[in-house]
């Protein structure tokens, strides 16, 4: 068990790095996912097709493959994802700005992959708004944009919170993969490092790493359960 104390800074560092990538990826995925969701519910068939195509491709591909394309396909396209070296952000999240691009690649992969699920979560929120609401709005003469803005979206975000939260939880867990794609020092890579290279006993390391993830996922899950129950009662 002493490894938990001796190597506390390593665990803490791993946790901190995982947290950083999760926060950044969540923000990115929410933005991209929202754009996709708008495409998917728009009245313009080609836009819908683009949204649908995106979702179908990224939802059905293992994240491992997406990670691979980000880490080795992007360089082949001549990019080191330098567009992510966003001035103020890179001083807060130092790994964003380093010359070593794998943090950025991992971020791109997580964002691309998670956005597909975010899109679906948002859409399920829109679907949860009773059809009568949109019909009533149309029957008053509201246009599609007004309908979304004044009637549907203000109601749908509530129904989206829980599915969105699940998507984010899943994303936190999925981030465990970044350690296998060149990001040194996140929680999962720490587990590997401590047990394989440094030969620490397996069980305490497993406990430490589990706690690291559970700290992020369980409270969020519990919060979602609360929200869900409250919403169920309000219905």
């Amino acid at each position: 068990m002493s490894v938990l104390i001796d190597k506390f800074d390593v665990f803490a560092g791993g946790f901190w790095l995982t947290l950083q990538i999760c926060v950044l990826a969540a923000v990115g995925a929410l933005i991209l996912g929202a754009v996709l969701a708008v495409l998917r519910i728009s009245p313009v068939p080609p836009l819908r097709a683009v949204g649908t195509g995106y979702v179908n491709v990224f939802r059905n591909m293992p994240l491992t493959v997406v990670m691979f394309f980000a880490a080795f396909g992007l360089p082949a396209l001549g990019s080191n994802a330098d567009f992510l070296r966003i001035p103020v952000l890179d001083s807060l999240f130092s790994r964003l700005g380093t010359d070593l691009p794998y943090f950025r690649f991992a971020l791109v992969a997580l964002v691309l992959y998670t956005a597909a699920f975010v899109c679906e979560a948002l859409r399920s929120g829109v679907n949860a708004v009773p059809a009568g609401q949109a019909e009533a709005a149309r029957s008053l003469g509201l246009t599609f944009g007004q309908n979304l803005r004044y009637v549907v979206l203000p109601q749908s975000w509530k129904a989206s919170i829980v599915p969105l939260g699940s998507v984010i939880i899943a994303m936190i867990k999925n981030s465990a993969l970044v350690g296998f794609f060149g990001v040194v020092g996140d929680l999962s890579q720490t587990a590997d490092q401590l047990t394989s290279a440094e030969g620490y006993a397996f069980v305490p390391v497993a406990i430490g790493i589990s706690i690291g993830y559970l700290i992020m996922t369980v409270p969020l899950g519990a919060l979602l359960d609360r929200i869900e129950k409250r919403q169920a009662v309000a219905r």
Partner: protein
Amino acid sequence: MSQQSVLYDVPGPRQRRLTLIGSAVATVLLLVGAYFLIYRPLNDKGQFSMELWGPLVDPSNENFSLVWDRIGTGFQNTLTAAALAIVSSLVVGTLLAVLRIQLKSLTRRRFTGLATPLSYLLRGLSTLLSAVTRVCVEVFRGLPVVITIFFVARGFPEFGVSFDTLWYLVIGLTIYNSVVIAEILRSGMEGLPGGQAEAAAAIGLSPLQTTRMILLPQAFRIMLPALISQLVVVLKDTSLGFIISYEETLNIGKQIIGVLDNPIQVYVVIAVMFIVVNYALSKLAQYVQRRLSRGRKTAGTPAQDPPPAALMSQSESTGQGI
């Protein structure tokens, strides 16, 4: 689908014309963008050369049959692991769901018929058991599958139990997915109209009978689409076998790349395989969903308004995977 047409009107002639022009312009822009941003750089690096693609797409290539032989083996291994994992997850998940529902109703019982100390003991025991299962569910749901698989593969031998890597993968996937399936089924049962359980109680069925004969069969039906989506998740998750050297599709792909040095090409082929299979599965899930909402062999689950719990687990199940 019908929801979308509720948001806006069927387009009229002017709107259709606008759409047509707009999409023509967008297509051209997309093609130009793809040419400059994707085709050109890749072509400059020779990524379209037959030397790299040949072994994958050209049957006359000397390596073609060898490569596809290997990919075939890998895909078979992927399917084997996924099938085993989903079957055992279903079994374990169902038991877990029933257990949790039963424990929930058991903790509400007072055991009034029994002696006081015994009734307190039984009440304490059922509360404890229900808490333990709850904690297990939360822990295994909260851990990344990669980590679970990794822990299984490293942990089991630590305690002197060792299997083939296939079984580590299956066990790791089962631990995680059975918990998810249990939650899917549980929310399916709890999402059924309360009237079903009440009607069952009203004709004198016991809680276990009610769960087994009334709730579970209907939960299975409602959740069939979500369960099929979970299959997609499992299929994708088998690709994590690479961390424990299980020779599934991706791992074999890695070996092929080691010899042929064509990573992008091999990964494109593998991605397409996954997308095709999983897309077919999700279409199947949608089809089943539509059939169900038409046939309505479960109480009160019209297609547009699934119970909130069901909604959650559905999106969760599609969100979980790697």
